[in-house]
């Protein structure tokens, strides 16, 4: 706990120097590049994540996105809600990512709008794991037939 406090203090000091002088403007970058810069560190280039720590999105995200509860989950999950991207930029990343992660042929997907993402991310999820488990249970038949 002491270490966390120390790290927080260091982080707070670090905040002073946070002038992103030569940072590429996320507005000018493709959704894929924004994924690389803001998500890939933990989710890895192929979305496979890390067993037990970062969920595997492959063949799963597309199924979540087609359930009302899952659609909410994707916009409210901390990784998305906390990302240093505007609502419009985040919507573009999510729209790209849902199709990229598949599964292919999961049916029509209505893209997120900036407004929808903005509303969702302001209501950030607290019980991430429980909701994910419930979504996994709901999508299990679809995942099994793949």
């Amino acid at each position: 706990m002491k270490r966390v406090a120390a790290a927080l203090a260091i982080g707070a000091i670090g905040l002073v120097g946070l002038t992103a002088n030569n940072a590429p403007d996320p507005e000018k970058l493709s959704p894929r590049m924004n994924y690389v810069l803001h998500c890939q560190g933990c989710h890895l280039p192929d979305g496979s994540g890390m067993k037990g720590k970062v969920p595997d999105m492959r063949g799963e995200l597309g199924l979540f996105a087609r359930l009302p509860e899952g659609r909410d989950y994707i916009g409210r999950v901390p990784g998305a809600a906390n990302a240093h991207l505007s609502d419009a930029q985040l919507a573009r990343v999510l729209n790209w990512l849902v199709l990229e992660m598949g599964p292919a042929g999961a049916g029509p997907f209505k893209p997120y709008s900036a407004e929808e993402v903005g509303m969702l991310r302001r209501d950030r999820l607290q019980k991430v794991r429980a909701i994910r488990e419930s979504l996994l249970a709901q999508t299990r038949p679809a995942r099994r037939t793949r």
Partner: protein
Amino acid sequence: MNRMDRVAEYLARGAARRLSRRGFIGRLGAAMMLGAVPLLPVARSIAATPPTPPQPGEKGDPTSCDYWRYCAIDGFLCSCCGGSASSCPPGTEPSPITWIGTCRNPVDNKDYVISYNDCCGKSACGRCECTRNERDMPVYQPSAANDLDWCLGTQSGVVYNCSTAVVLGPSG
């Protein structure tokens, strides 16, 4: 015809008396061995060159904190610790999850995506400590905080040894 047979027989018997078959195999083996020996020092001479000479299109010293790829590094440089700017020292494991940033390459003045993979599993290297926190976020923004020990993603636990800076490609 007889004469030819006799000459051939004479030569063959002479050769059989003078040359042993084992001797021939032994000499052949020795010759092959001699042929192989010069290959070894070549490998050694490559190992003796300094770790990671900059790639084409880069300049600077990968063992210095000022090296362009290290614009957002916080930790010990693996290039001073038995590894290189993009590989872990022997006996350590790269963390698959990383902190990702961008740095501007002064040679072409373009931004590149850099992945700061921590190398884990041996105690802290302690050499070439660098702290250049461009665009580092506080730890409550964990995906962009370089104060975190990214070794939490490895099998070998959270023991941090040093950091690499791998160029993933141009940003944009």
